[in-house]
């Protein structure tokens, strides 16, 4: 009897404890928004947060192009404006410049009509359509969850065709879900699938650069451990892939550095989330791993600078030393009290030596105030350079005269 009572009491007690534990579990804090995730307790008072995207492009009078400083002999002009959230650029065969956006959800076509640029919105309401690539008369667009195409688009700019789905077996995660899209020298379409977080152990399907055939077949991963790369290009001679990578936030003002990387072969791992900038183990995910396991960065490009567009210069307008030089557009920091980036850097690869890394265009940041954010570059037929600015909704043209 006594034993039964004891058992009964134990059961009651167990139920009680369980009942108490369940609501306690429900009281667990929910995850913070992804930009705030990974913020250490000691930084809880930080006012740092991503820079808000203005809903409208700036008027030409509000765009101080003269503040952009370039090397001697170069000249900067405002080439096009009124392109809300202008991001990646790609050229059509017939001279149309296609421009992507991110939160604006639009894809634009810019047509040069005897010196004035006409901006047409050819697709709208899309899911962060950051990636645009063009081949054989067809425009390809990468949103978060799918890649689509518009055949014969250059002849139908005023009545764009339906977007035809090329590939849609993609994660739907919004954080780092927007894509850069480009054709490799192998004719395949390359794009990033970013980590769905600031810092986390991502699923195997994330934190990579991937590729497919233009018909949507043959999906495969190219590079792993890539937190988020929204800019890459292939060396004009070696045909090898180079890319920019954004590093994690909330580890400090000066660390970790963003990266410029080289992925000459399939299957390399670039460290995320275990190791940052090639030599800083992650405080949480770096345990039991060594930075030596992963590919080291070719260049540490600076903390929080947000390197986006990567483009090898092959034009004939700029001086000879610019041949095969990389333009690296840095959209600029938010996770840093002293702003850094907001500039276009250049990288000169040198045999048997470290690459040379130096500024090309600066001035979007004045003191701690910004008036624009350079995101991508593109080369014009005449060899001049276009720079897109998603904050001002504008495109600048840089030309050179001896």
């Amino acid at each position, binding site marked *: 009897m006594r034993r039964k009572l004891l058992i009964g009491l134990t059961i009651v007690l167990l139920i009680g404890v369980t009942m108490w534990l369940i609501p306690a579990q429900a*009281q667990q*804090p*929910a*995850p*913070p*928004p*992804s*930009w*705030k995730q990974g913020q250490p307790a000691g*930084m*809880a*008072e*930080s*006012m*740092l*947060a*991503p*820079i*808000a*995207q*203005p*809903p*409208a492009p700036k008027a030409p009078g509000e765009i101080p192009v003269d503040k952009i400083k370039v090397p001697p002999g170069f000249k900067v002009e405002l080439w096009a404006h009124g392109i*809300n959230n202008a991001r990646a650029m790609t050229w059509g065969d017939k001279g149309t410049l296609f421009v992507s956006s991110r*939160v*604006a*959800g*639009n894809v634009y076509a810019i047509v040069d009509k005897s010196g004035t640029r006409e901006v047409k919105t050819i697709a*709208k*309401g899309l899911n*962060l359509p950051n990636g645009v690539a063009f081949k054989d008369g067809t425009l390809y667009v990468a949103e978060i969850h799918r890649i689509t195409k518009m055949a014969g688009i250059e002849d139908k700019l005023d009545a764009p065709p339906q977007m035809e789905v090329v590939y849609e077996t993609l994660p739907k*995660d*919004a*954080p780092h*879900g927007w894509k850069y899209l480009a054709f490799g020298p192998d004719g395949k379409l390359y794009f990033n699938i970013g980590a769905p977080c600031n810092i986390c152990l991502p699923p195997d399907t994330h934190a990579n650069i991937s590729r497919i055939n233009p018909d949507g077949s043959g999906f495969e991963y190219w590079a792993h451990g890539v937190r988020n790369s929204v800019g890459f290009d292939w060396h004009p001679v070696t045909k090898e892939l180079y890319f920019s990578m954004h590093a994690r936030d909330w580890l400090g003002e000066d660390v970790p550095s963003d990266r410029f990387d080289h992925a000459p072969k399939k299957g390399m791992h670039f460290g995320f989330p275990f190791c940052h900038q090639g030599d800083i183990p992650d405080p949480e995910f770096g345990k039991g791993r060594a930075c030596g396991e992963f590919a080291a960065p070719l260049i540490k490009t600076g903390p929080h600078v947000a390197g986006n567009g990567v483009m090898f210069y092959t034009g004939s307008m700029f001086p000879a030393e610019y041949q095969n030089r990389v333009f690296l557009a840095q959209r600029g920091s*938010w996770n840093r009290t002293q702003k850094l980036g907001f500039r276009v850097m250049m990288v000169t690869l040198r045999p048997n030596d470290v690459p040379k890394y130096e500024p090309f265009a600066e001035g979007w940041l004045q003191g*701690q*105030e*910004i008036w624009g954010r350079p995101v991508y570059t593109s080369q014009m037929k005449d060899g001049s350079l276009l720079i897109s600015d998603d*904050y001002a909704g504008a495109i600048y043209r840089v030309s050179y005269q001896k």
Partner: protein
Amino acid sequence: MSHVARTGGYKRGASRPPFSKTIKAVLIAAVALSGARVDAADVEAGRRKSAPCASCHGADGNATIPGTPSLAAQPTYFTHWQLIKFRDGRRKDAQMSPFAVNLTDEDMGDLAAFYAAQPARARDSVVDPSRAAAGRELVDRHHCSSCHTPTLAGQQQVPRLAGQDLQYLLKLLRGFKAKTASDLDGTMTMAAQPLTPEEVDSLAHYLASLPAP
């Protein structure tokens, strides 16, 4: 002028200060300042252009119809981005969508400036006090103030929640939970996922119970 988002940095789990007169005064000053920053012509143009909106949203952006949001004292970026989304079809509403279709970018800027400059008044939402009480701590646990600010007055592209209409808050929060509401960058859809249906309701009741800043 820089458009740095003034979000972040508010201690998790810390109780929010009561809406003291000082805070109210600061908020009114902030609203006045943000209004002053906008070109005066824009606000006046926005006032004229808002005439067709008045029958639902109120002449000064303070709506009275349950389920219709108040636009008064909403941040300019917020209103502007929502109008863009209605126009391009990312956000759909049988009543609202037809109005947005023909708006120009300039119209949107003017309307957003006008509504941001209007002082907000509380709604006549019938709030359940026990639900509101349950919702209070959910605001901390779910990091609402990280983006919406500690007073839930909103900022930049992030809307004011304090004193918004109960039925509208319920509709939107349930939509985010169901992944059917339109989201500029996915943040709200993610934020709503851990909420239970009861918590969604409690949160809406609490937000509706707050005084309009």
